[in-house]
Structure formats: structure tokens, C-alpha cells
């Protein structure tokens, strides 16, 4: 098969292309397309994160800048081992110029680690930065050994942002500042529930008490112990990082057993509207962090769409409600276009990595610049933080839900759609 690269090799070797000897000219100006690799969990439990892939990639390729690119998508099947394997295939067999990856640490970390090892530039998103950065270190327990990456770059928010957003939301309510925590025995639960570096110390600093009964196993059928512990502590707020089936079990049991907190602010379980709809009326006014919504005041540099247009376009094309990952998947392709527009040779990994590091652009999820703002020094070179606000699910008459931003103290440019309401 005659690939672009093989053509360049042979033509350079045989001197056939003496006439067009400016091979180092900007890649965008040449006829050959830049190859983007994209690893995404299109099947398996994380498939919800990838549901906008087809929509976003189609829009990207149809845009003016997109005409210079080719996107090669590989399904990770929600399996970290497979994610690493297909990342390697993309780098070696498909000879990509830049890797894009998103959708939880289970997907971003194996791909980013593979790329770093292979010297392939990678832009990653949609995973809190601590599990992304620290999770890829040789010894996550020893901060002194942590090293920055040469080729891996990531933009998203971190645990400190979640703590701030949750506290701001709770401060809007009149509570006794007693929190019940649901932290499972998995990567997220252990990170959030860690008594030293988890969310507990942050809450304590703001005068809140976290009652953490201990790690439970995912897919537990009974939460009586936690409910009794929360009742005993008179907890008026429930928080945690819970998978959807467990949150449904917990929430129904809490109501059955007469435990009625004023706020339930959980991550993961109520990220997707489908999970909230499964709760029915019990889903009304549940709150969580919001990383992207159709009211975010940002626009796409690729298609000129606003956040609202992008969300509406997705719904029009698929008939499904918009979800938070849509904006971030779209922003990956904005990043790729911007970065490749600033390099002379797309096939030079060092140059591409340098261009990523120099990024300073407005995306549909906010400003991305790897300037270390708001980050500890060890992560400053590789991580950029995007804005995070707090939202509440409001049930409409037809049984569907709207995610309404109720607190924007952490990112005032994002408009609120209401104020925090206590649970009935």
C-alpha cells in the first residue's frame, strides 16, 4: 500500500521529488492529511461517555479545518488493557501524528502512559487531574518521586475544585454542617475518602464534619448500616462518588427507612440524565458538579457553534438528551486543530508536544493554557484546569430532567439558572 509516509521515504530516497523539496513546510499546507488517533470506550460500562463521538467527529471532519485531518477511532471496550493495546496499534500500525483520549482515568491513563512511553504526543481530558497525573506515576504514594511528562497533556478539573463547588452549594442552604459520605472501595472512592488527601480535610476546613462509615463494595444490596450511621450523626447532607445502581439502592432505602437529608450531592451516579430519570421523582433536586452544560458561555472555534447549539445539534441528530462529555469530546478536536496549525511538521513529535505545551486558546469548555494556574508545581507543565460549577437536576412535568447551574462562585463567567434548593 502506498501511504503518505512511504511515499515520502521512497521519493526522498530516489530524489524523484527534487522539484518539491520543501518537505519541512507547514503540514497544513501540504496535500497529505494529518492523522489523529482517538481511543474511546464505545462499548461496555463507560459507553455513555462516548455516545457523542460520531456526532463530534462528523462535525469536525466537515469543518474547514477538519478537511486537513483524518481521525482513526479505536474502541477500548471500557477495558484499560485494551485501551493500552489499541493505543499502541494506533501509534505503530496507523502511524498517527497526535493521540486524543477522554472518558475517565480507566481510559485516559493507559493511553497516556503508552503514548508517553512511545514518544507520541497525547491530549487527554475528562478525568480529574489527580487520578490522571498521580495515577500514572511509578509510585503514587511518594510525591518526591513524581515526574512531569514530556508528551502527555491533560485538561480538566481536580478534587480541590469539587470540594469548593460542593461547599459553595451547601453554604447556600441552612444545614447543621454534618455530612454523610458514601465512598466505595474502588479507585475513586479511595481517593475521595482518603482521610489525609481526600475530600474530608477540605470539608473540615470550611467547618463541615464528614461522617464516613467506611469503604463498601460496589453493587452492594443494602445500605442500612450507612443510613443508621448517618441518622446517628444527624447528617443533613449526603455526598460521595457512587455508581448509579448503588445510588438508587441507597436513595430508595434512605427514604424507606425515614432518612431525609436536605442535600444529596454526589459525583458519578447522576452524571447522565438517563440515570436520574431512572430515579423518577426521587431524582428531583439531586445535585452534582457540572463540568459542561448547554448554558456555558463558550463557543467552538471549529464550527462557530455555541454550547447551546452544540447540545441542541446532538439532540436533533440522535434524539437523546445532551450530556456533559459532549463539550469535552468536541474540545479535543478544537485542540488538535489549534495545535497542528502551529507546527511546521506534524510528523515531528517533539515539535507537536512543544506546540501543545504552548497552547493558549478558548475552547467550548473554557480556556485551555498549560500555564500551571491553580496547580501545584509538580503538575503545572502537563495539566490545565477547566472551570467547574455546581448544578441541580430539576424534574419537569413530562418526567425528564434539566440540569440547572445553581452555583458559579468558582467560575463566575458561567451563568446560573437558579439557586440551590433543599430536598423536600
Amino acid at each position, binding site marked *: 500500500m502506498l501511504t503518505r509516509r512511504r511515499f515520502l521515504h521512497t521519493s526522498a530516497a530516489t530524489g524523484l521529488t527534487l522539484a518539491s523539496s520543501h518537505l519541512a513546510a507547514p503540514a497544513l499546507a501540504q496535500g497529505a492529511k494529518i492523522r489523529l488517533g482517538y481511543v474511546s470506550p464505545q*462499548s461496555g460500562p463507560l459507553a455513555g461517555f462516548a455516545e457523542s463521538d460520531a456526532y463530534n467527529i462528523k462535525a469536525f471532519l466537515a469543518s474547514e479545518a477538519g478537511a486537513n485531518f483524518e481521525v482513526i477511532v479505536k474502541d477500548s471496550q471500557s477495558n484499560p488493557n485494551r485501551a493500552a493495546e489499541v493505543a499502541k496499534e494506533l501509534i505503530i500500525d496507523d502511524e498517527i501524528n497526535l493521540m486524543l483520549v477522554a472518558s475517565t482515568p480507566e481510559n485516559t491513563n493507559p493511553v497516556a502512559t503508552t503514548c508517553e512511553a512511545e514518544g507520541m504526543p497525547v491530549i487527554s481530558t475528562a478525568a480529574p487531574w489527580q487520578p490522571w497525573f498521580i495515577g500514572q506515576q511509578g509510585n503514587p504514594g511518594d510525591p518526591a518521586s513524581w515526574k512531569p511528562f514530556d508528551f502527555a497533556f491533560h485538561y480538566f478539573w481536580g478534587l480541590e475544585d469539587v470540594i469548593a463547588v460542593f461547599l459553595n452549594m451547601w453554604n447556600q442552604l441552612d444545614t447543621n454542617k454534618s455530612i454523610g459520605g458514601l465512598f466505595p472501595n474502588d479507585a475513586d472512592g479511595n481517593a475521595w475518602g482518603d482521610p489525609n488527601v481526600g475530600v474530608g480535610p477540605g470539608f473540615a476546613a470550611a467547618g463541615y464534619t464528614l461522617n464516613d462509615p467506611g469503604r463498601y463494595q460496589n453493587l452492594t444490596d443494602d445500605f*442500612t448500616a450507612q443510613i443508621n450511621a448517618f441518622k446517628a450523626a444527624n447528617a443533613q447532607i449526603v455526598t460521595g462518588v457512587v455508581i448509579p445502581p448503588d445510588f438508587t439502592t441507597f436513595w430508595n432505602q434512605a427514604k424507606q427507612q425515614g432518612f431525609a437529608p436536605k442535600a444529596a450531592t454526589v459525583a458519578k451516579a447522576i452524571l447522565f440524565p438517563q440515570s436520574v430519570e431512572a430515579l423518577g421523582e426521587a431524582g428531583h433536586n439531586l445535585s452534582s458538579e457540572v463540568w459542561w452544560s448547554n448554558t456555558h458561555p463558550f463557543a467552538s472555534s471549529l464550527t462557530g457553534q455555541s454550547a447551546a447549539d452544540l447540545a441542541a445539534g446532538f439532540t436533533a441528530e440522535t434524539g437523546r438528551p445532551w450530556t456533559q462529555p459532549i463539550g469535552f469530546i468536541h474540545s479535543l478536536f478544537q485542540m488538535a486543530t489549534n495545535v497542528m496549525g502551529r507546527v511546521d511538521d506534524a510528523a515531528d513529535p517533539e515539535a507537536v508536544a512543544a506546540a501543545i505545551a504552548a497552547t493558549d486558546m478558548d475552547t467550548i469548555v473554557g480556556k485551555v493554557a498549560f500555564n500551571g494556574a491553580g496547580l501545584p508545581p509538580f503538575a503545572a507543565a502537563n495539566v490545565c484546569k477547566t472551570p467547574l460549577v455546581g448544578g441541580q437536576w430539576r424534574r419537569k412535568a413530562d418526567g425528564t430532567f434539566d440540569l440547572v447551574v445553581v452555583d458559579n462562585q468558582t467560575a463566575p463567567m458561567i451563568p446560573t439558572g437558579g439557586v440551590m434548593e433543599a430536598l423536600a
Partner: protein
Amino acid sequence: MIGVDTIVQGVLLGGLYALFAAGLSLVFGIMRLVNLAHGDLIVMGAYLILILVTLSGLNPFLAALVAAPLMFGLGWGLQRLVLNRTLGKDILPPLLVTFGLSIALQNALLEGFSADSRKISAGGLETASADLGIVTVGVMPLLTFASAIAVIVGLNALFYRTALGRAFRAVSDDPVTASLMGIRPAHVFAMATGVAMLVVTVAALYFGMRANFDPAIGPARLIYAFEAVIIGGLGSLWGTLAGGIIIGVAQTVGAAVNPEWQILAGHVAFLLVLLVRPRGLFPRAVD
């Protein structure tokens, strides 16, 4: 106070486990067939009820009534066309076939329903609670427990009061002699799996109303069902209920000490019972 609550909630949870396990217990008791796809069949039943509820707007309980004959037919066909061919002296073929069935079912459900987590909505019943004086319990867990007892009473009546039950017991004891008496084991086995699928429908109804389900969630629910069957003694239906309750109470008591011990406590209880009574609490017959 909290102690009583923990025990009561554990007993009610045991009802759910007994429902998961009753179908398994029935099939195992009659034909020594370990159905590894049992959990996935429950999930499939939940999707079937969900479809009926969504399409027709039926109450979930009525939808389960509609789903039951379909599930019976499916179980009958499954046994007649597939599982009967695997039965024999060797216990490995049925294990392998049901294991394969489990994987095939999960992927078929994933293909048909996507990975979205779904739930059967039961309206206000989901969160309804009943104040019993000392403890406050959910109406739904109470219903689940009552249904588990009803299922076991019903199955016992079927076993010991009807001609079909006599045939079940006969082929279970000695299929060769039973067939000399004019009983066709292949047909009886198919009927047994059909009845087991009726129980699966009941389990699917409560499972689907209790928490979200997705195509991959079946196997996680299978382990407790197995343990309940083994604790109770193979072939004993009341034993299966007792087994479910023992695991349920062990889990809630373990969790009351520390949530980390919740699942472990159930497994430890299972091992302890095996240590003291290797054949389970109420073994029905000597095999």
C-alpha cells in the same frame, strides 16, 4: 434499636436473595444442573418487564404477569432444545454451555438495549415506608420478602401436592426408573426449567424495581444465589430461604460493624455453615 433494625433489614434482604436463588435451587434439585446464566436470565426478565411497562404503560406487577408465560415458554424451549442435550454423567458440558449462554445473553442485551443503566419505575411504592413501631421498613422490601415466601410455599405445593411435582421428584431421584414408569424425563426437565423461569420473572420484577440494571450486572447477583442454595442444602426450598436470610443478616451485621466487612461477612457465614454442615442446613436427600 439499631441492632433490631440491622437484623430486620438483613432478613428482608435475605428475601431478595432467596428469590434470586429459588429458581436455581429448583433446577439444581431436579436435574443437578448448575445454571451459570441464572443471573443473566434475571436481567433479561427485567428488560422484558421494562419493555412491557414502556410499551403498554402497564403497572410493573401486571407486566410481570404478562411476561411470566413468555419466560415459561423460553425456559421450556431452552431446556428442550439446548440444555437437555448437555445432561449426562459428565457435569462439565452443562456448566460450559450455561457459561457460554451467560456471555451470549449479556452481549445480546448490550446490543439491544445499550449500556444505559435502566430501572423499572414503581412510582411512590419505591420509597413508601411502613412504621412497625420499633423499626421503619420499606414497603418494597416487605413485598419482596412476602413474595419470596409465597414463591417457596407455591413451589412446595407444586412439588408435594401435584402429579407434576411427583414426576419432578421421581426424575430427580432416578430418571431411568422414572422413565420405566411412563415419565418422560426430557419433558419433565423442560417443565422444571419453565417453572424456574416463572420464579426468575418474580425475581426480575423486584430486582428491576429495586435498583438500576444494565446488561452486565447479572453475574454479580449470581454468587449470593449460589451461596443461599448451598447453605440451605441442595434441593431444599425452605433451606434456600433460610440460606438467603443467613447471608442477608450476615451482610447487614457485618456492615453495621464496618461497611468494608459487608460482603465479606456474607461469604464468611457461608464458609462457616459449610464447615459445620458440609451438606447444608437442610439437605433433602442423600445423593
